[in-house]
């Protein structure tokens, strides 16, 4: 609003009130930029936090792999106590099957978490593409309006909301050009340039069975950006899907492979109840990758419990329990394949990793959220509206209008008096 040009009447300067020159957005550019970058990091942390919560669910606080493992070794100890006992042998096979089952379930649940992330990626990319094309359209509209000196406040507000979405998804940075258009760049990839938007295509599958993220420029140039995107929700999802969850899975696989290998090696050194050298206890596993998904008791052995090799020599059958004791000792043996740890410690360190990753992410999420709330509050104090404040202003303006009308009425009264004097 600007003060209207006063009129001069009889040597007096009379105010003409104010004129509305235009409606402007009240924004603090610093807070807006700060808010956008915070949306990026909150998006990243939130995605990681929810993914880790999913991973954590694969490892129950009690009754998980650690319990199955100690049950298995307990059953082996029972076998050592009575190597000729058939019940002990049947019980051991049961516990070994339960251990295999638990490992397979945990592995499956980690894979499910990974595929869940993959699906999230798909919908995130879809949402991003929509937002990017709308931003490009708004860019064109804003440039058109403002070049014609038409305010484009509503378009800018719309674009601001979309930009928040885009930064939350990608952690992108934005820059406004002099003509009012914004350029959006994420991890070196141009997402929006003037009136044109790039797209992310997740329709193609990589050999691993997971989606590839193809970056397509407005001109149709296309390349694989799966490893390039690091920020925001999409970056976090990719990081969890391709790095963190596979790391947990590999650790679990290493655990399973070592368990199967070491038990089989020791088992083959012994002799079963029929006096023949021990065969495989678990079905042998060739590679670390995917090992935890295929742990199972050897079917031949599962069908005939007498084939468990508890004796160290064929002549010691049936009372010799030395190989059973040697198998029990695997519990406290450290293995180079597990980084010099015992089976149990290796698994506990995996749990510790999952737990502390989740804890760290939750803590930083809390911190970022409170930061976001602060900045939002400050932005609100600049751009927001307090109804009471506006209401008092309204009353003020109402009163000044009343005062002005009183002036008019007084003048009217004076004219009335004057006219009636003439009559």
């Amino acid at each position, binding site marked *: 609003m600007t003060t209207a040009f006063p009129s001069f009447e009889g040597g007096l300067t009379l105010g003409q009130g104010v004129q509305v020159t235009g409606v402007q957005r009240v924004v603090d550019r610093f807070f807006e930029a700060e808010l956008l970058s915070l949306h990026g990091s909150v998006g990243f942390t939130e995605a990681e936090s929810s993914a880790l919560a999913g991973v*954590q669910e694969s*490892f129950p*606080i*009690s009754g998980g792999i*650690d*319990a199955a*493992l*100690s*049950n298995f*070794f*307990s059953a082996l*100890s*029972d076998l*050592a*106590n*009575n*190597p*000729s006992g058939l019940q002990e042998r049947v019980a051991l096979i049961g516990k070994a099957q339960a251990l295999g089952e638990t490992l397979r379930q945990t592995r499956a649940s980690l894979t499910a978490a990974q595929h869940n992330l993959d699906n999230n990626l798909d919908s995130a990319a879809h949402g991003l593409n929509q937002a990017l094309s709308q931003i490009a359209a708004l860019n064109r509209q804003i440039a058109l309006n403002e070049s014609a000196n038409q305010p484009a406040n509503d378009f800018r507000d719309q674009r601001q909301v979309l930009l928040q979405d885009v930064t939350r998804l990608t952690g992108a940075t934005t820059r406004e050009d002099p003509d009012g258009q914004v350029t959006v760049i994420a991890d070196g990839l141009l997402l929006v340039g003037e009136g044109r938007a790039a797209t992310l295509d997740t329709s193609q599958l990589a050999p691993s069975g997971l989606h590839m993220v193809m970056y397509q420029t407005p001109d149709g140039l296309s390349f694989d950006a799966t490893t390039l995107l690091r920020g925001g929700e999409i970056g976090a999802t990719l990081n969890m899907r391709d790095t963190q969850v596979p790391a947990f899975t590999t650790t679990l696989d290493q655990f399973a492979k070592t368990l199967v290998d070491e038990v089989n090696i020791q088992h083959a050194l012994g002799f079963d109840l029929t006096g023949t050298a021990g065969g495989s206890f678990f079905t042998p596993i060739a590679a670390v990758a995917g090992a935890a998904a295929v742990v199972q008791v050897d079917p031949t052995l599962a069908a005939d419990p007498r084939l468990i090799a508890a*004796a160290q*020599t064929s*002549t*010691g*059958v*049936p*009372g*010799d*329990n*030395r190989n059973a*004791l040697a198998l*029990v000792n695997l*519990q*406290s043996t450290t293995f180079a394949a597990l980084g010099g740890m015992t089976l*149990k*410690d290796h698994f*506990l*360190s995996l*749990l*510790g990793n*999952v*737990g*502390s990753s*989740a*804890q760290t992410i*939750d803590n930083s999420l809390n911190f970022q959220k409170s930061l976001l*709330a602060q900045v*939002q*509050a*400050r932005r*609100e*104090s*600049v751009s*927001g*509206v*307090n*109804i*009471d*404040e506006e*209401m*008092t202003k309204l*009353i003020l303006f109402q009163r000044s209008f009343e005062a002005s009308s009183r002036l008019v009425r007084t003048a009217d009264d004076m004219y009335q008096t004057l006219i009636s004097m003439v009559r």
Partner: protein
Amino acid sequence: MRITQQSITAQVNDGLQQAYRRVAKTQEQVTSGLRINHFSDDPIGATRALDLRSVEASIAQYQRNIDNTTPFLTMTDQKLGDVIEGLTRAKELALGMVNDTNTSLERQQTAKEIHQILLQMVSSANTNVDNRFIFGGFKNGLAPFTQAGGVVNYIGDNGVVSTQIDAASTLPANIPGNQVFQGTGVVGGVGVFDVMRDLETVLNGGSATNTLSMAVNLDSSIVAGAGFTPANAVGTEATSATFLGEANFTAPVTVFDSIGQAHNLTVLFAKTGATTFKYRVVANSNEITGGTPGDLYQVSTEGTLVFTAGGALNAGASTLTDITLNNLADGANNITITAANLSFAGSTHSADPSAVLTLAQTDTNGFNPQLGRIDAAINQLDTFRAEVGARLNRTQLSTNALEVFKSSTMAQRSKLEDADVLSVYSDFSRYQQALQAALKSAAEVVQMSLLDFLR
């Protein structure tokens, strides 16, 4: 700073969220009774608690191992006691028969009783617990002692079944029957059943038989190969009515192989019967080194004689002459290990410890020597019984230690894992009050507007 309706709403929402989260968290702790409900609540505490839980599981397992072993040891102790009782009874009976005034009929009746005691002892030695024979070693699926006409044979083995009773130590759960009842591997070992059988024979007017078995063995540096088999260790000693049990070994003997390397000659003896055997080695003077001629090697107990490698008198000799173990008492029943059997091609030689030959002698001295052997047998069983007692004692001590360890581990885990009920409850009611206050104030603040007052 301007406070707007938006910021009030955001703040109210934020505060309510926080209050709800705190209430939910403490509520979870109250219902589960656990301080840690997710690994992220306290990753270090959670893994430590899991670690402690597996320690508890192993403690329970050790306890189960001990519970499993105890009946075996208790039964072993009891059966050893039974056999000792039988031996004591046999000794009483034998002492009653010492006088020449006892008629041969009385002696034969006593012999029958001795036979019954022997059978009772064999059945004790064949005791099983839970279908496992306690004196069978690893071969515990079958009765370890067979008995036919008073001759008892052991078909078990030397296996010792051990069980883990804590993280660092194991406890042997059995004693092989051949050690207890036959004295195998025991210094001065006595065959318990042999004593009983000899006593029976003597009471029946017969003669007890003493046997000496001997294995000739070359030292361990000689690796297996051709040249020395049990069949090669042929002795000429045989049963002799004129055996007087008096023979001498002479000086230490060194055996050289074809490339002039010296080897120890080891003679292993196992014997039954009360007689002391004495032998000496007579060899070609080239093969005898060191020592004093006429040194006596006395075989009064089972054991090993080692003729140590000495100088190199015969270095380079390609062939050895015969080594004779000379029974000086009768001058006839010598054991000769022929040169052919001690000469080797190259440096690979057999060291077969089973090159055994057995000497048997008849003892006509009546049953007086058998009384001493009964005492020796009782001593032997007492020693084993003391050993079993010590093991039982160890299981008790371990049980106590495991109890203490278990309760301290559980206390530690509870501290990590379990919610402190008092403080969780007080937190819960505090957060609940805070939530109520927040809700109440929020309701009032959000409603308030100047509009309400402009009427």
